[in-house]
């Protein structure tokens, strides 16, 4: 039995990697086209460097690349070795070509230069190439020239990988610091890439006739898109538009949502274990199969790595549910599966047995999937039932409903006194500030001082960053408009049904993410109805139309849904994605959503990206 299950698990991975691409085509928009286009370009580049090759990776890129091409594809194109980009000398490899896959960053150029110079001394006859992802940069080439190695490269090209398909309805640029760059450093590079990515998307899926947006960055991206459209006027594509509209949303229009703890299954997995490029690493204890006679011997120490996407049937079903609704689904599934396995006793004739056996692979996969998710749910449950989780959530919900947001919160105080993780504190303090449209100077200074005294004065810069980003601010004379926003947009729903939700607020057990509300209200009854509130939120809101070539106007069938691409500039949480998916599935919704973002985030990694880490050398 053990041997069989072992065999299954290996089979399982094969199935997954085949499905890997397939699940991208299940959605309303076949995102596999995008992936295929990216793969084609990669193959073309690899073929340009004839002969055996070694790839030297900018480590950050390996994750996103894994979603485009597995090692097998690289291998087919004579990639024999892979290294991580490191200072010093390149490891030995008997290959003709060395290809650097890097982001255009100056510090990486210095490392490359070091590699190349070290290599030359070894009197080897190798060809060097650089592939910049997502765009080549004059600045970087200049740096290579200064270092005297630019001439050593045969090919210097760019691999335009802006939007990477993560799931059938989800695209991300995985640009780690997009929010920080845009809102803190006034560096709009990632917005330029966003606009370029949207142009690529339009080249593949047709011009998007309507663009809506809210926020400064949204406006900037839309402007660039319109400009680029004029620039590319000649290569106007003749594709029937797949998307009916595009909604660009600045993250800073809704700073509240990412601060709140996500309560969907996927959201909680991300909050607790953080999902990276579609994979999550989990503590291994729960996943060991209890083998008879072996007792507790050799427990694996390596974390268990699982891929999470809609290719897995069960996961697709539960990922977006409120965590409280996951348990019942799992137990129902368990019953169905064991019933299915029981069937074998009823199978009498050869034909029946044969049919049973033919279903086995599917059943086995379902069973292992169920086992995995039961384990994950148990892990998560241990946390959600803990007192600290409960207390934290209570405070969050108090803030979101506007309870005592204007005074120092004693729970936060206690947490600071007990030196709870700084990011947890920052999430709460920022949330209070956002829900109160800024804190009284006294309250703000008190929190700041407490934080500096407890966690160290080096966090002064982090606090200054949070203030710059608007997450933390002193209250100005204007009155707190958060209650108005909350009421008008119905951000807090009292009677929520976690099991069978009827509103998006289920994803935060009461709080309806502001961003998604904006998307929802845009469709019905339109933004005109909430002009007042829109004015309270930062940045302009706008609508643009893009002319379609004649003959490409869609004739909509009766009852056919519209498709909207919602682009979150500065990041989106899994709970927001769940809320949009919920809207897509609403029977009378009339709109299906595809989600794109600069980065998949949660409150923790988001706040982390805004922190300035100062480390002093030892005295």
């Amino acid at each position: 039995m053990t041997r069989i299950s072992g065999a299954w698990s290996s089979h399982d991975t094969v199935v997954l990697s085949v499905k890997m691409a397939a699940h991208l085509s299940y959605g309303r928009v076949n995102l596999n086209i995008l992936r295929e286009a990216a793969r084609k370009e990669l193959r073309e580049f690899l073929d340009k460097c004839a002969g055996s090759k070694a790839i030297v990776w900018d480590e950050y890129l390996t994750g996103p690349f894994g979603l485009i091409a597995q090692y097998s594809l690289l291998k087919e194109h004579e990639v024999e070795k892979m290294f991580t980009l490191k200072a010093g000398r390149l490891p030995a490899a008997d290959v003709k070509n060395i290809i650097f896959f890097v982001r255009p960053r100056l510090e990486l150029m210095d490392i490359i230069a070091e590699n190349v110079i070290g290599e030359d001394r070894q009197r080897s006859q190798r060809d060097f190439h650089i592939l910049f992802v997502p765009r080549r940069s004059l600045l970087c080439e200049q740096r290579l020239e200064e270092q005297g190695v630019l001439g050593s490269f045969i090919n210097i090209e760019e691999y335009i990988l802006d939007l990477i398909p993560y799931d059938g309805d989800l695209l991300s640029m995985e640009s780690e610091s997009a929010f920080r760059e845009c809102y803190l450093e006034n560096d709009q590079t990632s917005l330029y890439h966003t606009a370029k990515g949207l142009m690529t998307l339009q080249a593949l899926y047709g011009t998007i006739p309507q663009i809506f947006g809210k926020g400064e960055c949204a406006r900037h991206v839309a402007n660039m898109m319109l400009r680029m459209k004029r620039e590319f006027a000649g290569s106007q594509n003749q594709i029937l538009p797949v998307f009916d509209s595009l909604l660009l949303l600045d993250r800073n229009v809704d700073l509240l949502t990412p601060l709140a703890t996500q309560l969907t299954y996927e959201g909680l997995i991300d909050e607790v274990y953080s999902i990276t490029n579609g994979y999550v690493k989990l503590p291994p204890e729960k996943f060991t199969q209890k083998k008879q006679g072996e007792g507790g011997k050799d427990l694996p120490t390596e974390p268990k790595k699982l891929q999470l996407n809609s290719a897995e049937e069960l996961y697709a079903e539960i990922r977006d549910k409120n965590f409280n609704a996951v348990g019942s689904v799992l137990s129902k599934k368990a019953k169905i599966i064991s019933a299915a396995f029981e069937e074998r006793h009823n199978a009498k004739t050869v034909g029946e047995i044969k049919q049973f056996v033919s279903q086995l692979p599917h059943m086995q996969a379902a069973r292992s999937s169920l086992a995995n998710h039961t384990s994950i749910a148990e892990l998560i449950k241990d946390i959600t039932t803990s007192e600290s989780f409960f207390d934290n959530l209570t405070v969050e919900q108090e803030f979101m409903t506007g309870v005592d947001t204007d005074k120092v919160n004693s729970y936060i105080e206690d947490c600071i006194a007990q030196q709870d993780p700084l990011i947890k504190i920052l999430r709460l303090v920022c949330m209070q500030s956002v829900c109160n449209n800024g804190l009284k100077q006294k309250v703000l200074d008190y929190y700041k001082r407490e934080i500096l005294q407890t966690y160290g004065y080096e966090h002064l810069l982090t606090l200054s960053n949070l203030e710059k980003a608007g997450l933390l601010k002193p209250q100005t004379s204007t009155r707190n408009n958060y209650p108005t926003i909350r009421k008008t947009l119905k951000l807090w729903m009292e009677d929520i049904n976690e099991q069978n939700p009827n509103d998006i607020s289920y994803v935060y057990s009461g709080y309806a993410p502001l961003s998604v509300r904006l998307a929802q209200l845009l469709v019905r009854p339109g933004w005109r109805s909430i002009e007042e509130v829109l004015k309270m939120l930062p940045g302009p809101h706008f609508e643009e139309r893009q002319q379609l070539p004649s003959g490409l106007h869609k004739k909509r069938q009766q009852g056919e849904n519209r498709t909207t691409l919602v682009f979150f500039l500065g990041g989106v949480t899994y709970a927001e994605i769940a809320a949009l998916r919920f809207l897509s599935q609403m029977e009378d919704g009339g709109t299906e959503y595809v989600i794109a973002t600069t980065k998949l985030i949660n409150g923790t990694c988001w706040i982390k990206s805004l922190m300035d880490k100062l480390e002093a050398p030892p005295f």
Partner: protein
Amino acid sequence: MAFVTANWNPLGEAFYRKIELYEMGWNLREGLRDCLIAAAPYGGPIALLKESQRRERSASARPLLEIYSAAGVPMASFPWKSGVVVHISWTVSDDLLCIQEDGTVLIYDMFGNFRRHFSMGNEVLQNQVIEAKVFHSAYGTGVAIVTGAFRFTLATNIDDLKLRRLPEVPGLQVAPSCWAVLTQDRQTKVVLASGKDLYVLDNTACTPVTPPGIDPQVSSYFQMAASFSYKYLALFTDTGHVWMGTSNLKEKLSEFDTKVRSPPKQMVWCRRPKSQQPAVVLMWDRLLLVAGKCRESIKYHLDEESFLVPELDGVRIVSRSFHEFLHEVPGACEEIFKIASMAPGALLLEAHKEYEKESQKADEYLREIKEQNLLPEAVRQCVEAAGFEHEPETQKILLRASSFGKCFLSNFPPEQFVGMCLDLRVLNAVRDYSVGIPLTYAQYKQMTVQVLIDRLVFRRLYPLAIEICRYLKIPEFQGVSRVLKHWACFKVQQKEEPDDVIACAINQKLGDTASISYSEIAARAYECGRTELAIKLLEFEPRSGEQVPLLLKMKRSQLALSKAIESGDTDLVYTVVTYLKNEMNRGDFFMTLRNQPVALSLYRQFCKHQEQNTLKDLFNQDDDHQELGNFYVRASYGEGSVEARMAALQNAVDEFNKAKNEFSAKATEEQMKLLRWQRRFQEEFDKPYLDCSLHETVHSLLLDSKHKQAEQLYKDFRIPDKRFWWLKISALAEKEDWEELEKFSKSKKSPIGYLPFVEICVKHHNKYEAKKYVTKVTLEQKVKAHLAVGDLEQAVEAAIERRSESELNLVLSRCTPTTDRALLDKINSARAGALKK
């Protein structure tokens, strides 16, 4: 119709015909006598340089260089002021090469504008060029010369000039009687004849050769001609024989006795691609002779001095009055028009003729074809033949016949017919007298539409080029847009027109035409020295990114910067910023950035990672004290000694004060104070305190029972009571000093209540101690406290007392399957009670 075959002459298996292309529009008083003539292949222009005037260098009579279209329409004419010209010829891109005696090669465009010049080497200066030839290869256009020292020099591509001097021919005392250049397999060779000897010269060697089957009586070669493709070579001997063979001189194709002993003025190949018949055309004063495989030949009488232009599929004959084309009649035409032909195409043509006459014979003919299942073949033949006919009338007849035949076929693919109609329409348009490009169908296919459009553009026939692009539905990018761009590039060179007018005219015509690169046009204007015009044109460029490099080149760096910002491409902004940084002095550079916030923030980013000190200067210049403060804070962490860090922090304090950021100033002062304390403790207790937070410092002092110092910090830093209590109890619990903890709990009323006492004890696994504090916990927290020490019953009691449903639920959630049944019932009934309320 009956006359189609009237000009056909049989030669061996095949027929040859000579058709008139144009009656020449030029007015040449002396005809083509004593002229240097060059006619570009593929129906290109014709250049003439009057030889008679060339030799006599009198100021009054300078030679005249004239350029005409193939129809003899004048295109340019100017007096030749340069040196003595040995040879003129055209390049593949219709530029005229004039090769002078001194080895200088001057290049003109077809409108007589001087392009550039180059030299065939110093050696030539002394010995002079005695003969030159221009040849075409995969690399482009090449030039070969032979000098007075009888040495050959080659340049295989004039656009990438590399001169190659070929090896000496041993014993060569006189100029070779004739020679030819052969390019094959990426190799260029020269074949030359001297007396009865033939040599092949390549890069490294001179090899004597003997053509197979050559008459041993031959004592000299008068003429030599390589075919259009350089695959074949023809030799005219002093015995009056023409030897035809492959150009590697390994195979003889045929030999023909012309019975003329005088050297022909010109000898060229006349051969259609894929034809089986080798044929050479020879020209003497009044005689034109076509010689092939058989013993007969075709002879034409020439009324006027003529000039032969070899083409891919025949020979053009240019004279003072006419321009004719001589070629082998293509198979399809032969099949259809040959007298008494029974080929399907011929029958179809007949059928259609009868049909036009409304005769029932049409049906008979058709039936005959259909019975042999040859109708598709017939249709194809007619379409194909139409392509080879020069007269539109004949083309029409053939196309109509094929269209008629098509009616009786189902599922016949229309592409060939439609394509031929389109092609012929284009061909007829460019063959028109006013355009004067007499292309044949085969030449057209060989050169491609793209090149044809280029040729039209070179001739400045922009409207026709655009018309053709539209007619053939060539994508705008490769078609109309490209033509318009060329037009605009030409337009900017019109010096007499003011900038405004030109810019306006260009924009009017181009508008937002797809993918027009205004920057390319602007670059052209800039090359012509019209910077202002270039800037005006750049304004129309929709791609800001494209504007930047040229603006930088024109030293309009400020404008370049704003354009780069407009494009949104940050890399481009960086590029301009780096450029500015190197170009300007620091002060100006900073001022420029100051006016461009986007560029400034990008540059700051750059400095943050690359040039910390510049960053400081930037903030200083802007009096940005807040950022300067942050800068010093950051810098302080780079310092290795306490003193240095203190100094940096003091700077930060000063800046924060200037920025009126009281909080940061105070916090930083506090930080310095802490550092001082920590240093003291470190010295006193010989334990590391530096780099701990205040909280950690107090905690560690408490752990070491340094209560006095802890109190000092507590007071000095005004640590809130609450937190100090937390600090204290957690430190005491951590070192399990339960006695002290209890004492502390009684010292005064706890500002944090007593639940933390319970919890901290439990955390350190001492329920016994924990229970001591449960009673002190306020009513609201009682349940939690009981639960913390694991006393469910008491918790239930407390919850019931409080009548709190949520607390009851909390207790319930802590119940396990082993919990006492009675307790559960109690909770449930209490819950029911609470719910009722």
